[in-house]
């Protein structure tokens, strides 16, 4: 029983992280129907910029005096950085291709992903980069069950960001413009909303969330690697599909389910095949219910 609860907590943590990455996929897909293959790379870049900024703070001795402030500052800086990066990528690789075939955009995204991954490798090296996370150790212990500070922080921050995003999308004018752009780009631009700007903003927000996930993964696992974006990226995409692509609540739910399945699959079935479970879910969902759990009935051509 303790083992089960422990796994539940681990699954929740991992699921929260996947949910954060999945939101970027689902938002971008909702607005321009593109699988942004480079999204996993924004997540990896977030992890790297996070470790760079935290190390900078640590070098100045700020980490010792007030670590939480440093973490908050590095989160803000990293999210801003990745938002700018995503906007630049969108401008270069996706915007000129908006009226080209889907295959062209997909390949451009794939190329961008390879490019960003190698840019990270060349600037930061091929080895794991350790995170200065020793300030955030410790946690609660109930008998055999341990909840670390990091786990609490990840779940807390995930909830915070998700609530913030929901407020943004459903309560503000910007969110309304985003939803309108997702429905009909031409009509939206007729009522004086710049759809280009909204698409850019969608990329920025999605990759900001992925960057936050990148920092937290770095803290949680203790290090980052230049190629860490690919597999979580695919799993997060599986989460987005599972929840119903284009649906924000669905992406959160899908992320949680994928995280849980992975942790329980690894814990009870086989640790070596843990990546397989997410893929099998992805394939099964696409086969039996392509619209996902929360998805509306999309047009057949989209599937």
């Amino acid at each position, binding site marked *: 029983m303790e083992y089960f609860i422990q796994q539940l907590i681990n699954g929740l943590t991992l699921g929260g992280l996947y949910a954060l990455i999945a939101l970027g996929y689902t938002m971008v897909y909702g607005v321009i129907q593109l699988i942004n293959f480079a999204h996993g790379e924004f997540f990896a870049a977030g992890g*790297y*910029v996070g470790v760079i900024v935290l190390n*900078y703070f640590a070098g100045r001795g700020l980490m010792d005096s007030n670590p939480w402030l440093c973490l908050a500052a590095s989160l803000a800086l990293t999210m801003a950085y990745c938002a700018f990066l995503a906007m*630049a990528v969108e401008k*270069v690789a996706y915007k000129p291709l908006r009226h080209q075939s889907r295959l*062209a955009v997909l390949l451009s995204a794939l*190329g961008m992903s390879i490019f960003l991954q190698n*840019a990270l490798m*060349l600037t930061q090296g091929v080895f794991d980069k350790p995170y200065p996370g020793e300030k955030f150790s410790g946690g609660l212990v109930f008998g055999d069950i341990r909840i670390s500070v990091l786990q609490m922080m990840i779940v807390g921050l995930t909830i915070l960001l998700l609530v913030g995003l929901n407020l943004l999308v459903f309560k503000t004018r910007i969110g309304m413009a985003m939803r309108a752009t997702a429905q009909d780009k031409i009509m939206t631009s007729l009522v004086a909303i710049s759809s280009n700007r909204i698409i850019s903003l969608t990329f920025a927000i999605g990759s900001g969330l992925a960057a936050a996930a990148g920092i937290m993964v770095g803290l949680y696992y203790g290090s980052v690697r230049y190629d860490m974006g690919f597999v979580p990226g695919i799993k997060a995409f*599986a989460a987005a599909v599972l929840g119903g692509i284009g649906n924000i609540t669905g992406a959160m739910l899908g992320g949680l389910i994928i995280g849980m399945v992975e942790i329980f699959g690894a814990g009870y079935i086989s640790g070596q095949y843990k990546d397989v479970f997410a893929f099998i879910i992805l394939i099964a969902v696409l086969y039996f219910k392509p619209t996902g759990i929360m998805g509306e009935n999309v047009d057949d051509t989209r599937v």
Partner: protein
Amino acid sequence: MIHEFKKIWKSYAIGLLWLMGIIWPLVGIHADGTLSFANAFTLWLYIAAASFVCLLLYVMNQSGSLKPVTTPLSAARSRVAATAGIVPTWFWILLALVLTGIFPVFTSRYAQDVAINVLIYICLGLGLNVVVGLAGMLDLGYIAFYGVGAYTYALLNIHFGMSFWLCLPIAAALAMIAGCLIGYPTLRMRGDYLAIVTLGFGEIVRLILNNWMSLTNGPNGILGVKPPSIIIPTFDGGFGFELFVLKKLHFLYYIALALAVVTIIAVRHLNYSRIGRAWESIREDETAAELMGVNTFLLKLLAYGMGALFAGLAGAFFCARMRFVSPESFTFLESAMVLSMVVLGGMGSIPGIILGAAALIVLPEVFREFELYRMLAFGMAMVVMMLFRPAGLIPAKRMGSRSEEREG
């Protein structure tokens, strides 16, 4: 020209500032808590200079300042094309065959090695072309079939001592079965979803190869696979047969060449057969094709099977040549590489894919000193290619656009 430049200098300047903002944190902040500007600034200057030259050329071309150069060039090109058109096609094919036939006589071991690589990738590219170029189904897990072929030969050879020639059809058949197994559940999907599901399947196959220790020896791979051998007649001491092991590289080169030629002929025949037309109709508009009586279900499955078959052949040969297989050779990046060969060359066009494979294998070998930047340039090239020539270097002649894509 000045006028043309006025239109873009502002966005160019903003873009450069943006670039500076992006590269500086990754290059300029160090782990020990110090800041530096020099490295980031030098890198930025290089990129700025290179992009400025490109931009200048582009603007000059747009405004017509380059006319004195481009006009004679294009005239010369059309003249060459016209002269080449007079010579019949069979002559070119014969010439290519002769040239590739005598290739190992005049070249070094290294060149032959590269040539074998190119030939393997031609097989792979043409196989993927059946799925992506002809039937219009985006497949990102294609390398899995290559892996199936390679592991089939490795396992049969190690455990049962079966020869390469016997294993070749078995590998092709098993890869084809794998293709149909993977193809079957994905037939209902199109476009992006199909791409992501095939990617998932490719990863699953790789993970199985990586983790099934008792069968595949996991990440260590399988060592000691025998190279192909042939039986040749001998005449010393009476007539007899002798088993001759083809260890020399140029023998392997000829096998690869034969495989590539067979693949080219087969794909060409498929392309211009009723099946090929049906695939193309599925690619152009699946609903319409179905209404016209094309059995889309069977044909799409067949496309998967045929594509996988060529990958299986290439895989068995790859294994025989390396005498070693490991899951490392079948990663997603390889799939992306083959896919970009197909797209770079021109989907559905056989000469295009041959050119694409040759370009993507030979160019990195030529720029060996810049090995580190190879994949960086590859990624960028893919983006640039899509921006400026989405149909590929030699586009296929019969190619339309899907009806549902035109609306968006």
